[in-house]
């Protein structure tokens, strides 16, 4: 790898580290708000809250983790795995949208109670960040960047998708 490519790779790594630090503060603040709302309630979920479909939410999370693994494979097995990651990420968003629809129909939407408030605000904002990651993967697939630049950008996309999966 040339000196220039190495320098640019490090620039990207430093920039991504700062970006993820900022994102971590953002989600930490949102989770802090969740903790406060939860601590205000007499019980959690608050009495009278319809049952929350934990299984559906967890399986959606698994889709996102799978999208992250697929993106890792793209580094060694070619761009088709990036396309698989994109598909899994898109499926995650679709499933989340479906879950939101069911929750609203089941009187667990935003504005109906503390659990609905917290779940919708945090999951919707998280979904926007996932969407940002998917746009980055789509751009990566369309990109005509040099052989040096592609793996560098892929590594940054992997870092980001890992972050949104952890969150």
């Amino acid at each position, binding site marked *: 790898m040339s*000196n*220039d490519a*190495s*320098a640019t790779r*490090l*620039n990207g790594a*430093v*920039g991504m580290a*700062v*970006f993820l*630090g*900022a*994102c971590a*503060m*953002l*989600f930490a*603040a*949102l989770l*802090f*708000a969740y903790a*406060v*709302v939860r601590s*205000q*309630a*007499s019980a959690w979920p*608050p009495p009278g809250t319809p049952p929350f479909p934990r299984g559906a939410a967890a399986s959606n999370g698994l889709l996102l983790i799978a999208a992250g693994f697929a993106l890792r494979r793209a580094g060694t097995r070619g761009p088709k795995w990036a396309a698989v990651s994109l598909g899994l990420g898109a499926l995650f968003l679709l499933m989340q949208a479906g879950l939101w629809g069911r929750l609203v129909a089941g009187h667990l939407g*935003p*504005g109906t*109670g*503390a659990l*609905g*408030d917290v779940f*919708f*605000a945090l999951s919707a*904002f998280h979904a926007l960040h996932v969407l940002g990651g998917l746009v980055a993967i789509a751009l990566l697939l369309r990109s005509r960047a040099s052989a040096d630049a592609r793996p560098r950008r892929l590594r940054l996309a992997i870092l980001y998708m890992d972050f949104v999966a952890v969150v």
Partner: protein
Amino acid sequence: MTAPAAPPDPAAPSPSPSPSASWVNRVFSTDHKVIGKQFLFLGLTFLAVGGVMAMLIRWQLARPGQPVPLVGRLLFPGAGGVISPAAYTSLFTMHGTIMIFFAVTPILIGGFGNFCLPLLIGTRDMAFPRLNMLSFWTMAAATATLTASFFVPLGAAASGWTAYATLSTAIGAPGAGQTMWTVAIYFNGVSTVMGAINYITTVVRLRAPGMTWFRLPLTVWGFFLTSILNALFVPVIAAAMVLLFFDRVFGTQFFIAGSTIRAGGDPILYQHMFWLFGHPEVYILILPAWGIVSDLLSFFARKPAFGYRVTVWALIGVVVLSCVVYGHHMFTTGMSPLLGESFMVLTMIISVPTSLLFLNWLGTLWRGAARMRTPMLFCVGLVFTFGIGGLTGLYLADIVADQYLHDTYFVVGHFHLIMAAALLLASFAAVYFWFPKMFGRMMSEGLGKLHFWPTFLALNVVFGGQLLIGWAGMQRRLYDPSAYEFLAHLLPWNVWISRAAYVLGAAQLVFVVNFFVSLRWGKPAPANPWEVGTLEWTLPSPPPHHNFDVIPTVVRGPHELGHPDALARGKDWLGQDEVLS
């Protein structure tokens, strides 16, 4: 401390495409110098808007309920030119919002950060030029959203610049104005974080060979540390804006207390989230100002900056402590006394590094061969006003005093001395100092001094007067304080404060004339009109698109003034990249 591991290739071209005749390329430029100027013009425009609002607020406080002369019927046609209570509330809300987020931030951080950073560290552009361009246009979108909010039914936001819940929720502020305010602040934050990513990466990775951490100009330290705070704490207010948006639009209750039939959130949660960002925000804005002033005092005193390393460590100390003092804004919220005392002590401790900084400025000035040019006047003015502003902060850090002074004009005077007076003086010092490098022309010294003196005197009368009426018990945000018997005797004070405010406003017209006349007819600027050694002054004025033909190799610090080797060569300064044979 060492230079960066992989210095930039000296022969590499600018990462930003060359400007072409196309206006699209010029407007959507990725050149840090163009983006810096775009931020500067945006910030100056909104400084004027926020300034006019300040004049209107002062009119109402001096002449309560009387029609505003000249522009009253145009601005407030429904009330016959009188500022209504609702309009007044909206005015002070938008004045604070505009000044902090849309004037000082774009001028100092966006404008001078962008223009100066690559030049001062010896590189050709920011690490991520396209992200830099996106940062400006995100700020422009935020600005457009805020501006549009004036024209929606029920008008612009009116819950104070802090937008405390529940005033700012749909209960306290119906209408789209407050929602648009929330969106505008969010996107302002996105723009700021984009800038922080760029500034941090640029300083960490793109310093010229030999530009070690302790050879950085203090201006660079200021921008670098500010960017760290921006990256850490702007996301916190962004999160608050997201939740406030949800409360307003989707009916959630993060910032509305629950009841026996519905669990909810807590209005005080908003204050925690706001001040967790809000107090570092004071340092976010003042750190670049401190950096600029620390450099300029040395340049114009013709002496090395006194205690350079101590200044750097003091700045770092302020950054660390600024993360753990925010609770002093909330002493009256009923917080635990133990917690309150902790915040009080930590706040008092922050005055230690700040005092070191202040003493170093005095040390720099001591027995210097001062050249009292316009930028120096503004810097010395800042030292004075910051001294008063900082000292009055100690009163507010003390729980007992704060119980009385909270929400009075003493608080208004204190933070205006820091956030308005000191920052404005630093901004003007920076404009006068870097104008020749930005635009290739000198500003008028005579008009500069004519701008400085009334500005300096008037702002001390205005904000000093606010301290006094606050001490006398006048609360902030009252539509007509004279309507209250216990405050009626302060009306003459308010009249005089307002008169000083009008002088302050009028003095800025001198700056406007100087700026635009110099832009067109100013004397052509030489490469190094101030005879100082930082890297930007080794370039022509204005610098070429690619900044440096060859990336310089830095051999010394930024403040080599009065150096014996220089004196032997018939001058009193040495350039950072000047090799002595």
